[in-house]
Structures are given as C-alpha cells and as structure tokens.
C-alpha cells in the first residue's frame, strides 16, 4: 500500500515537473532553398523543440553587397516554416547568409548559417500539359508527345534556357527508356508496338541547374488495328489484276490472229530473172551470170586510167529515123567523158576530176548564151540519173556513140566534181545557127567553166570538126564503120588547137573499130583505140 502510494506520488511529481518546465527552443534546421525560375526563391526550415512555450521562428539574412541584417520579407506565401523572397528581394550571383532564430519566452536559439547563391539553387517545376497522340505516317503509327514549359518561366527574354528529358515505358514492363529533347517541346516516337499502352513522363532543367521532378504519368493506348489504307489498295490491285489476266489469256488463245493483225506478212522481194533459191544457195557466179544473161549486157571493162573516152550521146529522136540523107535537125550532142567503171545501173558515172582539167577538152555546148562564163546552173543529178536509168534499161554501152532517148532537155550544170556537165538543150529551129561546141577556155574551181565567147557557127558542110572526130559514111554490119575523109579546113581557134593540116589518117577501108555493141548510125565516132571485144 505504501509502496503503491509512493509510486503514485513520484509519478505525479514527475508529471508536474514536466509540465511546468520550460526551456528555450530547440535548434531549428534550415532545410534548403529553391528558386524555380531564377527570379524568386524560397527557403524552408525545420523547427526544433519548442521548449514547452510558444515559439516563433524568424529568418534573418545578410547579403553580399548589402549592408545590415535583414529579415525574411514573406513568411506565409510558401507555407509554414518557410520564407519567400520575391523579385525585389532576390539578386543573383550574390551570396545570401541565412539563419533561423527560434525564440520563446525563455530564450532564442539560432540555427546554422546557410550560404546560398541563387544561381546554384535553381530547380524548376515539371513541364505542364503533356499530351500524347497516336499519329500515322505512311502506314506506320508513331507517338507524338507534346508538352509545355513550366509556369512562370521566362524564356522569351533569354533569361533562362530550358532543357527537357523524357522517359517512356510500356504498361507491362518496368524499364523506362530515356530520351532527350534539347529545347523543343515535342517528340515523335516511331518505334511503337501496336496494342500496347504507353506511359510517358517529362522533366526539365534550367541552364545548368538541377532537374525538376518528373511530371505526372500520362498514358495512351495504341490501337491494335491501325486504320490504314492498305486493305483498300489490296482490293484495288486484286480487282485490276483479274481483267489483266483475262486479257492475257485471250491474247494467248488468239495469238495467231493477233499476229496477223499486228505483224502482217511482208511480201518478199521479187526480181525478174532472179531465182531466190539460187540466191540462197550462195553461188554468186551463177547468180551474176543469170542476172547478166537477162540483161544482155556486155561484161565489165577494166578501168582505163589514162584514156579519155568520150561517150557521144545524141538526140534520141534522130535515132528513130536513121536516114543518112536526111540529116537530123538537131545535132546537139552530149559529150560525156568516159573513163569510168561501167556499172549497169548507172550509165554515167563520175569522171575523175583530172579529166576536166585538161585543157584540150571540148565540151559541146548548145548554149544560147554568149557570155564567156557558163551560166551557173546546178547539176541535176537526178535528171542525169533518170537518163542513166533509162539508158541502162536499153542496154547502152559507154564507148559507142549511142543515141538514146534520155538525152532530152538536159540542162547545163556547173562542174561539180561528182557530176558532169549536162548541157541544156534548146531546140533551135534555125538552121546553121547551131552551136555545137564551145571550147573550154578555163576551168575555174570546181563548178565553173569559162568558155570561149564566140560561137562556133558552121554549116553542116563547113563544120569545124575537131580533129579527133571523123564522119561516119557508112555503117556496115555490127562492127564495121566507114569513115569519111577529112579535109583540112579548120579554123585556128586557139592555141590549143593543133595544126589542122595535120589530119588524121582516115582509114580508107572499113576498119574494125572494135565496137562491141551495135552502132546506130551516129554522126561522130570517136577514134578510140581498140579495146577488147566482148
């Protein structure tokens, strides 16, 4: 009983002692300060024991470049046990020396001094308004994440620069994947899994300060079936393939008629007298002989380089009525130097240029002009060719004086290297005014010839026959020609003209001139040396 009572008294006394003892407050502790935007900052402390008495806490500070001790300007804005420094009271790059003093009736207790430079305590709030969107690009989905900078941050004036960081994870995994975004406020995440749920968090940092807290998690589900246009395109392609295949089938089945339509058979060439089979056999000699036999042509003659041979082509009309007594009206003739390789399709081939350069060439010119220079008319190659074509059809040889129908309306051409002089024929009715020849005075250049001015006027009997020519008196047979004797009357035209008295000896006898083809009663025969007969 006594023991129990004693205990009770002791307990009461201790209680009384406890309740009645007061002490100065315990030491508060400054927890730290933080500036969210580098313009204001807040500091927090933790109070110590209050010592049984109502205790107040006050914050005092000293500042670099500021004299005196100052007290916290705002105790309430940031909550209890905090001190908020607004813009006016905040200076960067200066040291603040802070301390908290707890005071009660019995005394004061001061905390340790905290040294703060606002530059070092910058820690922003997390970014705001994080939105997630599932977008699509070219058939593949991607995640578009967008956010906004935290409140109160002034980026416009360049006072702070904000950097962001993201982390993403799928719903079922524990692993976050970090991404950096320098200063832009969005991010596109391309490698996402369809049907998964994605969770995203963002944080930011100002200048070189501390990272903010991670924002709240935002999540978005990615749909399983992405509504892209692929099925549509598959359908379209399938539908277009079917008629295409059908068309191909039809084409294959009817290929013969298609072939007829698209590639009609080309008629093969047919040459009269030429046997295709013979050609195919490949024996060229037979082919050529077959061809030649058809054409009745003399064989090819070897090229005779130095010999000038002239082809006399006279008016074709005369040929029709070979009446020696009735001299043909028109005696226009063509002299075309022949010294070329005979080809069956072209009677008149190109002479060598040196032929023309010889001064004693004489060109028959039935020109009406009396100027010295040859009028410049173009060589009508085609006309020539036409003549030649006709000539070849009739099988004319080059070395005989042949008349053929192609020599009509031939125009005078300048001397192209590759052509002849084709002489304009003018149907002159006047007798005795025929101008048969003009002497070539000079050949200038490639396509001009200067001729003698004077016309060679002569009657038929007084014709100034060039010395090389003999008149045919009588034609006897296939290869015999009777020539007339020449008299010595010839004018001395020019120096080129040799002595006319130096006549050529006319063969009194019929001589074998060695003409291969039939002479058809031309007026002039060139006394060419003999050549091998066919």
């Amino acid at each position, binding site marked *: 009983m006594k023991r129990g009572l004693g205990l009770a008294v002791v307990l009461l006394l201790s209680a009384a002692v406890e309740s009645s003892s007061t002490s100065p407050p315990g030491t508060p502790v400054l927890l730290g300060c933080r500036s969210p935007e580098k*313009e204001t900052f807040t500091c927090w402390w933790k109070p110590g024991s209050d010592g049984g008495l109502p205790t107040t806490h006050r914050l005092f500070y000293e500042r670099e*470049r500021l004299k005196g001790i100052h007290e916290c300007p705002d105790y309430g804005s940031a909550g209890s046990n905090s001190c908020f420094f607004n813009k006016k009271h905040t200076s960067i790059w200066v040291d603040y020396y802070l301390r908290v003093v707890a005071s009660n009736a019995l005394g004061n207790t001061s905390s340790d001094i905290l*040294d703060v430079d606002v530059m070092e305590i910058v820690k922003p709030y997390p970014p705001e308004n994080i939105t997630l969107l599932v977008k699509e690009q070219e058939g593949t989905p991607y995640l578009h994440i967008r956010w906004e900078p935290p409140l109160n941050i002034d980026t416009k004036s360049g006072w702070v620069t904000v950097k962001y960081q993201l982390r993403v994870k799928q719903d079922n995994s524990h692993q976050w994947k970090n991404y950096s975004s320098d200063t832009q406020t969005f991010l596109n995440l391309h490698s996402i899994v369809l049907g998964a749920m994605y969770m995203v968090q963002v944080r930011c940092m100002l200048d*070189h300060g501390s990272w903010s807290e991670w924002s709240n998690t935002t999540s978005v589900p990615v749909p399983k079936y992405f509504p892209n246009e692929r099925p549509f395109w598959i359908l379209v392609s399938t539908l277009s393939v079917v008629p295409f295949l059908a068309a191909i089938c039809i084409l294959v089945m009817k290929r013969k008629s298609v072939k007829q339509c698209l590639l009609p058979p080309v008629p093969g060439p047919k040459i009269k007298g030429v046997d295709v089979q013979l050609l195919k056999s490949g024996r060229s000699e037979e082919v050529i002989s077959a061809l030649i036999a058809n054409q009745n042509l003399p064989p090819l003659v070897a090229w005779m380089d130095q010999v000038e041979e002239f082809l006399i082509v006279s008016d074709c009309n005369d040929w029709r009525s070979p009446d020696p007594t009735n001299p043909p009206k028109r005696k226009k003739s063509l002299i075309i130097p022949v010294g070329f390789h005979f080809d069956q399709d072209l009677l008149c081939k190109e002479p060598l240029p040196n032929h023309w350069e010889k001064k004693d060439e004489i060109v028959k010119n039935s020109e009406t002009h009396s100027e010295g220079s040859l009028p410049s008319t173009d060589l009508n190659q085609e006309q020539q060719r036409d003549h030649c074509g006709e000539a070849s059809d009739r099988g004319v040889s080059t070395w005989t004086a042949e008349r053929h129908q192609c020599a009509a309306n031939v125009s005078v051409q300048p001397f192209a290297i590759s052509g002849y002089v084709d002489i304009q024929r003018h149907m002159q009715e006047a007798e005795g005014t025929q101008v048969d020849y003009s002497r070539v005075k000079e050949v200038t250049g490639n396509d001009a010839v200067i001729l003698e001015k004077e016309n060679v006027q002569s009657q038929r009997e007084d014709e100034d026959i060039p010395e090389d020519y003999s008149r045919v008196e009588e034609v006897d047979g296939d290869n015999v020609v009777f020539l007339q004797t020449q008299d010595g009357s010839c004018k001395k035209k020019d120096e080129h003209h040799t002595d006319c008295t130096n006549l050529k000896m006319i063969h009194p006898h019929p001589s074998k001139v060695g003409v291969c083809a039939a002479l058809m009663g031309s007026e002039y025969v060139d006394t060419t040396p003999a050549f091998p007969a066919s």
Partner: protein
Amino acid sequence: MQKVWFTVLILVYLDFSVRVGTVPVCAYGPAGCKVPSLADLFERVIQQSSRMHGMSSDLHSEFEQSLSPNKNLIGKRRCHTYAIRTPDDKENAQRLGREQLTEVILKLLEAWNDPLSHLYWSLSQDQNQDFSYYSPSKALEITDMVQELRDGVEKMAQKMKLEGVTGNTVGSISPESLVPSFAVSFYKRGGLDSVDHHDLLYCFRRDSNKVKNYLHILKCTTLPGLVC
C-alpha cells in the same frame, strides 16, 4: 670567298624585296568569302560561353570534393571582380542597354585572363595531391577558352556597331579601366594554395555564369526573331 658574300647579299636583298604580306582571307567582304552573320556570331559566342561555364563548374566541383571536410565554408569570400558593376537580376540587366551590357561582358572576360593563367601555373607547380590529375590541363583549356571568347565577343560588338544595332560607345576596353593587376594578389601573393584555388574557381564559375546569361539576354534583345 667573294662569291659567298655575293650570294649572301643576293639572298638578303631577295628577303627584303620579296616580303609576302599577309591579308586576312575574308578582308574584302562578301566578294571575298562568306562573312558570318550577326546571328551566327551570337550562336558561336553563346556556345563557347556555355562550354566555358560547364568546364568551370566541373573544376569547381572537383575542388570541392577534394577539399578537407573541416574547411570552414562560412568564410565570406570575395572575388577580385567585385569592382566591376554587374546587373544582378533580370530587370537590371534588361535596363542596362546593349552597349553597356557588351562592355560589362568584355570587362569580365578581360579580368580573368591573368588569374587563370596564374592558376594553371600554380596547379602545375603544386605537388599537393588535393586535386585530380587533369586539373592543370583543364585550367589551361579554360584559359584559352576565355581568350577566344573575348575575341569573339569583340568581333560581335564590332558587327553590332556595323549594323547599327549599337551606338559608338562600345569600343575596345582600354587596359586602365580594367580590374587592376592586383587581381592575382587579391587572392594571395605568391603561390596559391588549395583554399585560394577553391575561391578562385568559385568566383570564376560565378562570372562565367554571368557572361553566359548576359550574352543570352543580348542575343534575345538584339535579334528578337530568333528562338530564345
């Protein structure tokens, strides 16, 4: 012997006569080559200052770790650039104006040339193993960086003057207006010990941060179209 002298004379003559003058590559403006725009200059300068600040922070934190724990950090430190009046918040910086802001930047950069080279020298001399092995090379790198940044800011200031952005008050800083040469002695005459190193680096970190911030404000007020 005479031939030798003759040759020598000829060479000397040639040396004097054939003096190749050096002309800067882009001396002739747009016709010569592409001169960077003001925006480019700003960009480069800001990047450089950012790098500089990063390096200074690293160096400082290295020193902080290496310091003995019983160091009394309460001691109020003073920086030798105390004399340079710098704006200490946003409004003041914006109120200062472009010319003066540029001048402040240049002053700050100029003031750190000597102390940093002294720091490097001191670090390389010091046998004390308080700091990491790489500190002297970092100090040298920072010294070069500061010099380059200063040149860059000067060029930028000239360009701004050329484009009429600033008036003519910004000129080259005359040496007399600078923080006096007792900068090094501000900390300690002779060799700097580790405490001084720490203080110096703390001050430099602060000043590089100032430079970076001021350049940023300058850019955003001068070229408002750019992303800030």
